[in-house]
Structure formats: C-alpha cells, structure tokens
C-alpha cells in the first residue's frame, strides 16, 4: 500500500497493516519535521508532490523490494501540505519473516524515496524560505 496524503501520519496503523501471522519482524522508518536545518530555525515545512507520479514511483520501490528481499508486505505513506515541527513526513513499514530482510528493505525504501519519488520540501524560516534540493 502506498499513498500520498495531507492527513497526519501515524505508524501503528501501518505496522498493523503489514503484520501477519507469517511476520516475525516489522521495520519502520519515520521521517520527522526537524526544527533546525543547517543551523537555521525552521518554523514549519511544506511538502508538495507530483502525486500521480509519486505514487507510481512508490509502487515501483515496493516492487524492487519484493524482488530483492523476502518480505511479506510494504506500506509507505508520504504526507504533503504544511507540517509542524515534530510531525511525520513519511512512514514506511516493512514486514518479513526475518528481521534482516525487514531492516534492509526498510533502509532501501527510504533511500530510494529520496532518489526517485517526486516530492519536494520547502523550509519556512522566520525570515525567509527555501525549496530544498537545488544544488545549483
């Protein structure tokens, strides 16, 4: 299950969703809106997605994971819109019979999200803002 949503994220529902009697381990990654970015205080974050493509790319990542590891299920939800500090931007949950598959797949998932999923973050400071990721 993958989704881009403007609703507040929680981990427990995703953990329950991916768990089954065949699961011995669930690995979870939660991305959280952090207060400081390179020393500047962030007031809030704004995430924007190319939703149709983002969900398609997230599905691709799930398919890649299922090829690479023996996992039972993967759930991945990314939030968009305004996030207050401490709120979650992404929750990824991977269940597997064995912990090493779950953990490796979860780590892979967040790395791949950052590579190929078209979602962008704007950091809003007290005295300005910037879209993150421009290297130019």
């Amino acid at each position, binding site marked *: 299950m993958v989704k881009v949503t403007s609703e507040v994220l929680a981990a427990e529902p995703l953990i329950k969703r991916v768990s089954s009697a065949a699961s011995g381990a669930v690995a979870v990654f939660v991305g959280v809106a952090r207060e400081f970015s390179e020393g500047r205080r962030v007031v809030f974050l704004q995430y924007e997605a*190319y939703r149709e493509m983002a969900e398609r790319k997230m599905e691709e990542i799930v398919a890649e994971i299922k090829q690479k590891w023996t996992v039972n299920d993967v759930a991945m939800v990314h939030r968009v819109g305004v996030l207050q500090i401490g709120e979650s931007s992404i929750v990824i949950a991977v269940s597997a019979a064995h912990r090493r598959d779950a953990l490796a797949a979860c780590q892979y998932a967040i790395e791949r999200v950052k590579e190929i999923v078209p979602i*962008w973050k704007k950091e809003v400071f007290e005295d300005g803002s910037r879209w993150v990721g421009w290297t*130019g």
Partner: protein
Amino acid sequence: MSVTLRLFGALRELLGTERMELELESELTVEQLRRVIAKKYPKVADLLPHLAFSVNLEFAGSDTLVKHGDEVALIPPVSGGGDGQGNQRGIGG
C-alpha cells in the same frame, strides 16, 4: 500540437501556475523542449539545467520524444522523506 506542463516547488512559484498548456509546432525531444521553455520563460532559465523531466509519469532522457497530448513535468531535485539529508545520487537514477 500541445502538451501539458506540470510545475512544482520553486518553478511553480516563479511561473505562478502548477499546470499550463504549451503549444508547439511539432514533436520534439525533451532537450529541445528544455530550450523552448528557457526561451519562453527566461525567469526559470537558470533552473532548467538542474531539472529532470518526466513524460507521462516516467523519467525521460534528453532525447525522449514529446508528442501531442503528453504530460510533461519539470522535476526539481527531489527532497521527500524528511530528515534533511538528501541523496547524492540525485533523481531519476
């Protein structure tokens, strides 16, 4: 022919819209389209070299052909996932 352009982040803000229809004389490659956009919208010309393109929801190479009715998105470096640490490999592989 015409294509739909989708704009996000800084590009959306600079051009004041998240979607526009672009009239083109003929099919052209992504690289040619990049030049057309740079010429037509000089205020984003500096950003364009740092963008990837997608055509119909798939990342597209420079010589991918853009056809009538296609949805083309200008994809800035992605920064989803939280935690403020980008991925050095950049986007689209």
